[in-house]
């Protein structure tokens, strides 16, 4: 069943290059030939979310930092990109309540004027990189105080920062730059779905390479055991800050791509809900697997925006039912997510990553696995039965114990004795003796 497959390095590279090219060509032509609009939309949005989910996974899955600031960083990224690429001629219309705003030029136009079409794309790439770098800078500053906090405090503090950022971007005083509560639009957007796919692909490749580098190993060491990592000479703060900044950089790029995808942005949707959605993608894909995050991002987008829409509209897969009304799609979605969290905590990929060997052997073993499945299932259910029986026995015993202890209590024995104090057990400051 477990026939190991090994491919030569050259073969693997060849396969990778071929499939990447194939995907790019296909994406390009589907969009170019005006193929299925929904498919293209899902590819675009999926690519953006794949990048953001991967960046969140770098932080949550690989460095063990439970950060919930992703939406806030995307917000900064989206705005930093949009502000510098709104054509000069559109400023008056976009910033209609702020006399055309403060910035009166567009990088895209300036560079296009000098360098032609190449300049046009450069004019998009530079603000995008700027968006990433600016977000990285903000993240660096936020990281200094926040990263000293432990798990859940970190989560709540990053979430708080994201909310503060959102209020800040909606502030009327900043209106001439951010357009306050009003939407930003007319900024440069890509023409073909291949653009977000390539950018997201490159960024995800960077994240993959990082994870497999010696720094990535240090990140994972921090995740597995902070104290041991520190004892092995890993500078906790420096590495956490590094992971935080890099992750935020990509969240910023993701935000810029999302802005392009949406063609208009305002700050309202970049709320906690968005972070939660990204987090759920990471969980579905598997915490600690970039491949999983990517697959989950596409699946999540396709399901929530496309395949399950029928659940809202009364008709799905040819089944029509009165319970299929507005909101049912989200209920189904929430149920699926809870099932995954509770019963398949590993998600789709666990901590495994994509490899050609894995894929081929999966296909090869598929028929056998399918055949073996009933037996396996039977074994599993039997194991579960046993477990249940054991649990029952344990419960009975516990009951008996309790009875005994109650008897003891009755006979005047204390229920619990003062704790012995160990040198390294949790020690409290207050309530000294």
């Amino acid at each position, binding site marked *: 069943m477990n026939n190991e497959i090994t491919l030569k390095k050259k073969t693997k590279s060849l396969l990778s290059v071929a499939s990447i090219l194939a995907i790019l060509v296909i994406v390009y032509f589907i969009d170019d030939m005006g193929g299925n609009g929904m498919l293209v939309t899902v590819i675009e949005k999926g690519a953006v979310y794949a990048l953001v989910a991967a960046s969140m996974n770098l932080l*949550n899955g690989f460095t*063990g930092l*439970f950060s919930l600031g992703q939406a806030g960083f995307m917000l900064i990224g989206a705005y930093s990109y949009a502000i510098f690429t709104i054509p000069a001629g559109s400023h008056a219309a976009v910033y209609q309540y702020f006399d055309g705003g403060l910035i009166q030029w567009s990088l895209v136009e300036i560079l296009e004027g000098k360098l032609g079409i190449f300049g046009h794309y450069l004019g998009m790439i530079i603000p995008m990189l700027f968006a990433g770098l600016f977000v990285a800078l903000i993240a660096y500053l936020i990281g200094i*105080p*926040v990263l000293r*906090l432990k*798990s*859940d*405090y970190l*989560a*709540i*503090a990053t*979430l*708080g*920062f994201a*909310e*503060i950022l*959102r*209020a*800040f971007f*909606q*502030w*009327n005083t900043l209106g001439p730059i951010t357009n306050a509560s009003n939407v930003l639009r007319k900024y440069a957007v890509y023409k073909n779905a291949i653009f977000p796919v390539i950018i997201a692909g490159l960024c995800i490749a960077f994240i993959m390479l990082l994870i497999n580098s010696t720094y990535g190993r240090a990140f994972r060491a921090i995740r597995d055991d902070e*104290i041991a990592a520190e004892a092995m000479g890993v500078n906790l703060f420096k590495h956490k800050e590094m992971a935080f900044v890099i992750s935020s950089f990509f969240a910023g790029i993701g935000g810029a791509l999302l802005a392009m995808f949406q063609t208009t942005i305002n700050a309202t949707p970049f709320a*906690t809900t968005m972070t*939660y959605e990204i*987090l*759920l993608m990471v*969980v579905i894909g598997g*915490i600690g697997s970039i491949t999983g995050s990517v697959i989950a991002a596409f699946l999540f987008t396709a399901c929530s925006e496309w395949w399950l829409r029928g659940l809202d509209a009364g008709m799905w897969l040819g089944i029509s039912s009165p319970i299929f*009304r*507005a*909101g*049912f799609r*989200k*209920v189904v*979605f*929430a*149920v699926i*997510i*809870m099932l995954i*969290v*509770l019963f398949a*905590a590993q998600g789709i990929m666990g901590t495994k990553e994509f490899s050609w060997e894995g894929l081929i052997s999966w296909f090869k073993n598929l028929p056998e696995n399918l055949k073996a499945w009933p037996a396996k299932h039977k074994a599993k259910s039997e194991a579960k039965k046993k477990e249940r029986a054991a649990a029952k026995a344990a419960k009975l015993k516990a009951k008996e*114990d*309790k009875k005994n*202890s109650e008897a003891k209590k009755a006979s005047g024995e204390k*229920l*619990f*004795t003062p*704790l012995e104090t160990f040198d*390294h*057990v*949790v*020690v*409290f*400051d*207050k*309530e000294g003796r």
Partner: protein
Amino acid sequence: MGIIQTWLPYILAGIAVGGQYALIAIGYTMVYGILRLINFAHGDVFMWSGLIMIYLITVLPLWLSIVIVIAFAIVLGTTIEKVAYRPLRSAPRMSIMISAIGVSYFLQNIALYVTGGLTKTYPSIGFLQKTVHIGSATTKMVTLITPILTIVLVVLLVLLIKKTKIGMAMRAVSRDFETSSLMGIDINRVITVTFVIGCGLAAIGSVLYFSNYTGINPMSGAMPGLKAFVAAVFGGIGSVPGAVVGAFVIGICENLIKGAGWTTFSDAFTFVLLIIILMVKPTGLFGEKNIDKV
């Protein structure tokens, strides 16, 4: 006198909303104290208590509705604990937090489906919504009742924790989970009781809160929940009096800020406060310092 006249309405509003946050915050702080878990779903239990009230009041008398709402919140809270948290108790901390977020997402979406996304209006409970005059300010009766009721409930709760056997068990479990289970404390029972108390208080909070701010939609629980959590952190998580003090501080400051004209940042302020307290005194006002095992 002039200053008091001007600011009285804000302070009153702050005290009222502070009391309501306090009732929610207790649930957060007690659960965190014992399970070390931010129960993200707590705000949604609060929202659901409000929703159920709307449906109940159409068929049942008021007092019975309130009783059933409290019972419902307790059942919902303990069920969440049994289904979503208990199986993950030995899992990494991140998993159980994700489960909490998942439950919150689930409860919100169910509410969205049931209500159809429409804002429902909370039934008016006659005497709570009566208008009263205090000096220059005019307000609802509930504004006055909330802080009194909150303080009475908190005193009862503190007595429960300090004087009864189950309270002692709760304190022991929050000290050291494993050791207390070795000492023969039924951990599951303690946790259930914690959820019962937390959710019951949240349900009472929901009656007071929604009598004051009458619109309920699926997201109604999110913001009060988050603020209550911040209050719990501010007061020192695990400490009941701390959570109450924190809630009043947040409620009053928030309204004073609005009164000062900084309305854009009234919500952001809560988080600024959170971050400041985490930087300066991570254990909060009354928190207990603990040292990690090595």
